[in-house]
């Protein structure tokens, strides 16, 4: 349960674009990718928490994920304020994310 809270997520990996740099397997905090001899391999897609680290560090855009905060509080606050995207509102003194 601690490894995958939810069954599905938005992670998509296109091995055809992979350059084999290995960054995704380095940055992923849930060991979703491993580095094979030449390519990254998606081994635990369900463990993805959509933090976006792999996508950001992939130089060839082989990974797409709709990253964002997995925080109900932030998402509900955004919905109440009519904002499209939930954030941690770090600049303001929101009570979370310290």
């Amino acid at each position: 349960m601690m490894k995958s809270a939810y069954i599905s997520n938005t992670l998509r990996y296109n091995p055809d674009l992979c350059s084999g740099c290995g960054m995704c397997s380095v940055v992923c905090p849930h060991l979703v990718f491993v580095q094979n001899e030449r390519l990254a391999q998606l081994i635990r897609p369900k463990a993805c928490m959509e933090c976006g680290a792999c996508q950001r560090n992939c130089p060839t855009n082989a990974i797409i994920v709709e990253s964002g905060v997995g925080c109900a509080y932030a998402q509900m606050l955004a919905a109440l304020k009519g904002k499209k995207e939930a954030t941690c509102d770090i600049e303001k003194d929101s009570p979370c994310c310290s």
Partner: protein
Amino acid sequence: MILHKDNSPSQPFIQQTSSSITLKNRWDHFLARIGYKRKWHRVNPGLYSIGHPSSESPVFVTANYTLSFDALRSSLRNIDGYILALDTKGINVWCSAGAEIFSTEELVNRINAVSLHEVVSHRTLILPQLSASGVAAHEVKKKSGFKVEYGPVRAKNLPEYLLTHQATQEMRQVRFSLRDRLVLIPVEITNTLLLLLITTVIFFAAGGFLLSAGWVAAVLAGLVLFPILLPWIPSPNFSTKGFILGGAVALPFVLAVLIGKPGAPVWQKIAWAAVYLTAFPSVTGFIALNFTGSTTFTSRSGVRREIFTYIPVMAWMFGGGMLCLVITILLRLFGAG
């Protein structure tokens, strides 16, 4: 401490720090953990030396939140190096990276601001792994010439990491251990305390001691028991885990109203039981759902689905239970009970 870089452009300004954690530091950590003035737990952004570094020594990058900065420096016992503290507004590494405050841009700007090119002869930076959601290593290389190396998730693994510059799978994985969850509880309580006190008084006034005690139990189940028991509550999502927990702590109160008031009419007993079993567990579930943001593994899309599925359920449970409560109290006031 003030940065004097502009006055002495040829001499980069380097502040000194050490690996020792003082009593004052520990007090600061305690205050941060209970959520006291959470924006105040900062160090000055900039370059720090630790030990006796030379131009060959490693450079470690971190956030300017004291808990992050201190976790790093206390892990560098007997290691000579530099710490580059980014301006992350006093927010920890992972959250500030997620909010793109610990970012490629901030890192490149900070490298230039402290003239890091003049301080070290090598061109490698060691970043905490969890900063990767805000930093693109290949772009930092392009914009600053520095190669980003992602170290382990936890600073305490740095001495071992530095032997090979390879992190084990264990070092690369976030956890959410009982200890990790326990340290979050005080701040959860701080954030809710005032609201809890006010609502408790209202419930006490409306329904007496038992009702307000049931309310406090439901809220504390969400704030305290839920983080502790999270991995063991048998259910696939946070809301239903909260319902289960809220229902469990409500049971003694249900029993108390069912057998505790011999003279009361049956419909009244059932109405009270309904309040404990619907309205209060819905609040435990709501608090549980809000804990998603504190965990290390919930995804945005998963949380969104859970909100859409369970917020309406919670609203019905709470609304129905409260209606039950109001009707019962009114009927009792006007002589039915």
